[in-house]
């Protein structure tokens, strides 16, 4: 092995994962509220395009990110209104939007293909960047990376430590019961779809203004939306586990590179495709633990049960099912 700088690699993982982190946190919030927004892949691309376009024309990164967030929220609004208020299949609407937004991005973004535009610069934290180990690992990134880490913490705090987060989880579990307690499930779902969508939009901006600056076809973010969806499931809908999943994904990406030469008999595709089999595995685990026989067996082995409980996530119970009032 070359003198691969482990710290630098980890710092790279931290940075490389930042858009995925934003997208997965957004989708986690949305799904925790019981709504499934399948349009991520298209949303990210369209937001990336718009972010670049706006940042380029207005010469302002801030406006670019704002536009990206708005695009994300706008698309989520369509899914939310159709899925929550009109009772249409969330999966169908999200899926159509995925395909459509992607093409819309290519169509409208064509004139902006591969031109120079503004991009985020590293913003070392004064003082902290000089810390011996942590400095290069944590404090020499762009604003985006700090933001992504902050978003993880905030998402966790929001979901588990605030009243709104509690209500949001409640709605995702049992909208009828939430309604009985004076919460408006539809409004709450829509609002969090917007919030989640905005974060997904920011992820798009993070690509075109940060990680893979510029617009073009391909942009390089194609497929990331699906990966993000897979990671949310892999992380069992818990923001910290999901974030871990995002970092694991980025790490696998990096790991695939040296492995090319260390272990050439492993097909390169294995590492790229990994998130998907892992997602299926996570779901399988979830499904199997709900089987009677397995459950009984696990009940007889408390340690196994504990282990299962800790790794298995649980989908919000009302996920994807629109709420209707009696």
């Amino acid at each position, binding site marked *: 092995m070359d003198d691969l700088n482990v710290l630098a690699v980890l710092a790279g993982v931290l940075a490389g994962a930042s858009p995925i982190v934003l997208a997965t946190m957004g989708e986690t919030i949305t799904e925790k509220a019981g709504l499934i927004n*399948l349009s991520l892949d298209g949303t990210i691309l369209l937001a990336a395009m718009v972010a670049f376009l706006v940042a380029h024309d207005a010469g302002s990164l801030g406006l670019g990110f704002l536009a990206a967030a708005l695009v994300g929220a706008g698309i989520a609004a*369509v899914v939310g209104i*159709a899925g929550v208020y*009109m*009772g*249409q*299949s969330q*999966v*169908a*609407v999200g*899926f*159509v*939007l995925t*395909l*459509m*937004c*992607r*093409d*819309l991005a*290519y*169509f*409208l973004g*064509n004139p902006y293909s591969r031109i120079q535009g503004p991009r985020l610069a590293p913003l070392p934290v004064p003082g902290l960047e000089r810390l011996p180990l942590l400095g290069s690992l944590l404090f020499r990134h762009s604003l985006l990376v700090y933001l992504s880490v902050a978003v993880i913490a905030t998402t966790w705090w929001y979901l588990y430590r605030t009243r709104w987060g509690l209500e949001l989880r409640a709605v995702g579990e049992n909208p009828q019961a939430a309604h009985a307690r004076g919460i408006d499930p539809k409004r709450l779902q829509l609002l969090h779809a917007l919030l989640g969508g905005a974060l997904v939009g920011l992820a798009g901006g993070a690509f075109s203004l940060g990680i893979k600056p510029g617009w073009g076809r391909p942009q390089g973010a194609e*497929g990331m939306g*699906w990966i993000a*969806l*897979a990671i949310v*499931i892999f992380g069992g809908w818990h923001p910290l586990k999901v974030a871990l999943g995002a970092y694991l994904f980025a790490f696998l990406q990096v790991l695939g590179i040296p492995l090319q030469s260390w272990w050439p008999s492993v*097909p*390169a*595709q*294995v590492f*790229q*495709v990994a998130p*998907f*089999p892992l*997602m*299926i595995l996570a*779901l*399988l685990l*979830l*499904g*199997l633990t*709900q*089987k009677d026989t397995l459950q009984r067996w696990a009940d007889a082995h408390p340690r196994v049960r504990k282990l299962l409980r800790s790794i298995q996530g649980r989908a919000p119970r009302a996920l994807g099912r629109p709420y209707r009032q009696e």
Partner: protein
Amino acid sequence: MVAAIVLVFISAILVLAGAPVLEVHGLLVTGAVGSWSKLAQVLRVWVPLTLCSCGLLYTFQIGLWNIGVEGQVMLGAIGATAVLRLGFDSALPGAVLGAALVVGMLGGALWALLAGLLKTWGGVNEIFAGLGLNFVAQGLILWLIFGPWRRPGVASMSGTEPFAESLWFPTPAVWRISPHALGLTLVALAATALVLRHTRLGLALRAVGGNPSASYLFGLKPGRLMLWAMGLAGALAGLAGTLQVTVVYHRLIPAISSNYGYLALLVVMLADYRLSWVPFIAFFFAALNVGSIQLPLVLQLDSSLSGVIQGALVLTVLLIHAWNSGKAGTRWTT
């Protein structure tokens, strides 16, 4: 109504992009059906799209969201390629092609059954299983093309070494489209119509899709029927993949599935899950895809517009449906 909304939407996008609205619409039409050669090209797209859509009808009937068609097409193509590679020097090209069809369909069916088993046995939502398997299938194709099946020396995007011409389904020069492919597609359409409308299997699929627990009490086996639906859908997708290999590209290429699996989902949604509309909507979508090539050629516009039009149409229809059923206040159809 739908058409009007979409027309306005598309025109708005065109204005936004600064394109001549009328000319674009005109070009899309002439570019698709302006000559026999273009029509033949449309039919080439129509064939796999219709096959995939037919397959999706089985799974939608039973209430499954089979998003894994892409992967099933790919596995069909892989299966067919495997046979054709083995039968490279065969003296009986007809038999080899026949075997390729069978193995291709099997490949698609098995890939679909994998998602089906994950669903019925493992409780894995078919959407995520299918999606994941799509990516795995794509990885598999790339691995084969750049690895064990690479062209001597030049592993490249252009795929595996082309098959000997004797192993192509023939395309008469004047036809420009393989009669075999057209024939098989028509057979698939007819068979699907027959199975769905006139056989116990079709009825059982609808019954389980409508109400699994009632169907169980009627003596049906929902799990097994789901596997049947997945298997049939996969076989048809596999057939599409096989034809992509044997008729269109004459080799395995990375983009062999050409997004038809995803597009077929849109076709079936727009057809409101009805078989009778599928061939026409598939034709319309194929025509859009082919017609849109004129956009860069003549107007220097990006041809992704066709995808936008397709998406906008389906989205509009979904929203109008939701709106109507919301007004009616009752929803019992699945």
